């Protein structure tokens, strides 16, 4: 027993060291967001002094230069609606694929699976041109693009789970006079809820942080948070470091809030998503 205690103490110290390495980058950014812009790049590891303390000036100038507040709104709008669309439509599609099994549904199933390994660069040019031609280059149209791109992983995960749902309850609902639409929403979807949460979380993490897709499709008119941050880097690589630090902090805050409030589901979702993969 004694030996295990010593060993665990050593491991505890190793874990503390790792934890410091994982947290400190975020703290360094937070600390620098309160320093004057010229003191940041040369001495990033030093706390603000009386000379270098900038108050909230970086935040006010950063918010004004990047249009952070509308960006936050667009990021929230696009993420929430796209995730809702993905959960509603791909779960229904997955159920259809499993329950109306045939050659056609098998082909679409494998097309969905196939789409998961294709790099975005393969379709980025043609997809953004098509989005443009079809007038999908606005915050509502991009939701359809996200539904199409998110379909692969989401259909795959839903159908993996639906295969284990017993047919009996659905047949009982049919006998009670439910049509397939009612059966699905009254009986099947409540059973799918854990998978739906997993799918929602994985897609939220992707869409909220996505840069290139929204940049190519709507970036010239609507900036999401990642686009607004990249926009701070001027044409010739000159960056207002103060504003940059403040924007990084503002970009991290919503993520940390999301994480701390739904951590239990996120950790479970990641583990569950991997088993299905």
């Amino acid at each position, binding site marked *: 027993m004694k030996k295990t205690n010593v060993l*665990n103490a050593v491991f505890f110290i190793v874990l503390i060291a790792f934890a410091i*390495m994982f947290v400190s980058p975020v703290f360094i950014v937070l600390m620098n967001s309160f320093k004057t812009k010229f003191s940041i790049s040369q001495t990033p590891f030093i706390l603000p002094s009386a000379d270098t303390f900038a108050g909230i000036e970086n935040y006010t100038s950063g918010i004004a230069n990047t249009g952070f507040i509308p960006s936050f709104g667009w990021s929230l709008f696009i993420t929430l609606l796209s995730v809702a669309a993905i959960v509603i*439509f791909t779960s229904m599609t997955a159920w259809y694929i499993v329950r109306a099994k045939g050659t056609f549904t098998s082909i679409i199933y494998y097309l969905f699976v196939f789409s998961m390994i294709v790099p975005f*660069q393969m379709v980025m040019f043609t997809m953004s041109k*098509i*989005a443009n031609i079809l007038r999908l280059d606005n915050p509502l149209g991009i939701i359809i693009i996200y539904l199409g791109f998110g379909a692969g992983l989401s259909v795959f995960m839903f159908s993996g789970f639906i295969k284990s749902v017993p047919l009996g309850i659905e047949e009982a609902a049919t006998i009670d006079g439910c049509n397939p639409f009612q059966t699905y929403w009254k009986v099947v979807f409540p059973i799918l809820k854990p998978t739906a949460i997993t799918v929602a979380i994985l897609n939220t993490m992707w869409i909220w942080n996505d840069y290139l897709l929204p940049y190519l499709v709507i970036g010239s008119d609507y900036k999401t948070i990642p686009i607004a941050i990249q926009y701070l880097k001027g044409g010739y690589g000159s960056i207002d470091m103060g504003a940059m630090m403040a924007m990084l902090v503002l970009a991290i805050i919503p993520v940390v809030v999301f994480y701390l409030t739904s951590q239990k589901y996120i950790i479970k979702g990641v583990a569950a998503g*991997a088993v299905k993969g």
Partner: protein
Amino acid sequence: MENTVKRWFPVFALPTLVAFLIAFLIPFCMGLYLSFCNFRTVTDAQFVGLANYIRAFGDNNEFVSSLIFTIKFVIVSVITINVIAFTLALLLTRGVTGTNLFRTVFFMPNLIGGIVLGYIWQLIINGFLYRFGYSITSNATFGYWGLVILTNWQMIGYMMIIYIAGIQNIPTDIMEAAKVDGASPARVLFNITIPSVMPSITICLFLTITNAFKLFDQNLALTAGAPSKQTQMVALDIYNTFYGRIGSEGVGQAKAVVFFVIVAVIALLQLYLTRRKEVES
């Protein structure tokens, strides 16, 4: 029952299928075709055969050097991420004090977006190199290790969660039987733990390999390829070919097809090889 379901196709499957066609399937097929064409927009294509593919490899060696850079990056980061993530998972399944807090901390960077991560690490690495009179863009080696460190910081937590789930699924009686038999910790690790978590290893390797290959945002924010495109990964090279020079869209599309084939072949090969190990164990 089945036929009634089939009649509901327009409600259940059509919306997703239409979106899938618009966002993925049609662009994918057009992309394949256009890689053999000269074009500016997608509607003015002229067939040119393999010319784009020849130019992709021949014009300058940017594509080949970005491929080599990417492969070096993938090999080193896949190994480091998985070794560190697995080690942390082992430490966090021993009942050490504060396990939940550590897990929370290690996973946190994964939720931060690639662009934000890139600028965070640019600040830290530049601040460190500044003392020696360098910056991250003064030498390709700095950019390379910067990307490796950044990717480790981002992905270790995610893989750790998957490994923890795998380790927790190992039946406790096997572990206890091994202890009763007096097996050394090393033997338990190599003969029980690792074979039992092969499914987790398969998925973690798949996720790290494909994500490391496709890395774009982090590359753009951290170095944007500097100095002189030496730290440019394939995804960024394809992007720059498409949007950097007018008249090379076809070459960009040809590079994208080659990139797709490489990623698909490596990912499927890896799945095949590690899945085979799962069956054996």
